[in-house]
């Protein structure tokens, strides 16, 4: 690190990706635990990405903006955890590579009323072998299902942890992040043969 840093240790940053369908509660989830207001930044869809992004039906529109929520948690004086929410709409999936690149792991938030909204996220993380878990966001009006039923509906293996959470509740959100970091650690230890 450079000589002018105030801190002794270099700043380490890690990130976790929060994904799920549109309106499933990603912004709420991030806001419940972030120390900064979830900030919406924008990425541009330029002419270059027209082939990637589906712009059919929006005649004459060659550029648009998308809000990306993110939050920050200072874990200690030299370790920052960032939470990045994926854009909800399918048409922004080309941004995912940048969001997921180097991520510790991912949370797939699920609304049991719209289970198929998260298939894309699950496929994406499975394909790229990103550690992820499924957090069922419990809405008051949501019919409750046994997690095993949800697992079956999603068609995911027993190795993917599933838990219920309340995205508005800091303790609940923290529980999800603990479960994810635990899972990442266990997976790594298995890889290095320590387990």
């Amino acid at each position, binding site marked *: 690190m450079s000589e002018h840093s105030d801190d002794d240790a270099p700043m380490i940053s890690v990130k976790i990706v929060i994904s799920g369908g549109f309106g499933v509660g990603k912004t709420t989830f991030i806001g419940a635990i972030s120390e900064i207001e979830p900030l919406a930044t924008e990425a541009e869809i330029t002419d270059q990405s027209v082939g990637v992004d589906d712009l059919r039906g929006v005649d004459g529109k060659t550029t648009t903006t998308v809000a990306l929520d993110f939050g920050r948690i200072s874990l200690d004086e030299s370790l920052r955890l960032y939470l990045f929410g994926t854009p909800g709409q399918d048409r922004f999936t080309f941004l995912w590579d940048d969001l997921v690149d180097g991520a510790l792991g991912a949370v797939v938030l699920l609304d049991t009323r719209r289970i198929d909204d998260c298939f894309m996220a699950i496929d994406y993380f499975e394909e790229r072998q990103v550690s992820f878990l499924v957090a069922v966001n419990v809405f008051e009006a949501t019919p409750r299902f046994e997690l095993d039923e949800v697992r079956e509906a999603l068609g995911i293996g027993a190795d993917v942890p599933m838990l219920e959470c309340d995205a508005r509740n800091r303790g609940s959100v923290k529980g999800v992040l603990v479960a994810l970091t635990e899972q990442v650690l266990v997976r*790594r230890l298995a890889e290095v043969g320590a387990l």
Partner: protein
Amino acid sequence: MTGADPGPWPPPPEPFEEEGDAQARPPDPRMIPAWDPASWHPSLTDEGPRHLDEADEDLVIRPFLLTGGRTRPVEETVRLEAQVVARPSAAVDPVRFEALQILEACRQVLSVAEVAARLRLPLGVVRVLVADLVAEQQLDLVEQQALSVDLLERIRDRVRAL
């Protein structure tokens, strides 16, 4: 910020002679009176520069104009969560307005995503500009740590202690 009320409207020019029962069209408040140059641009008014808000999303200038049309950074390792900090000696040509703003914001260690949010610029644009400044040795990019078992344990413990 300009309020909803445009204030006392300058007296419109002489109304046209209307024929028959045609209604005189009231002046459109969005129109800029030619006799009042101060209102031509928001920054020329007494209220000073205006902050961007929702209404400004249709910017006239395309965002990637700021990067000379480049959409990828010179250094691909500049991740969104990468931490950058300005060197004390950092100085750029004042006409590089965005670069100056980035150096200003990066007096403290910030992630690329936070810089983009503060400057209200698209992430892709800021990534390119930050990578340029790193290449020019105006900004220091904090090297990314590999996710070692030790680091993973530290993260897990710290998250649990939140």
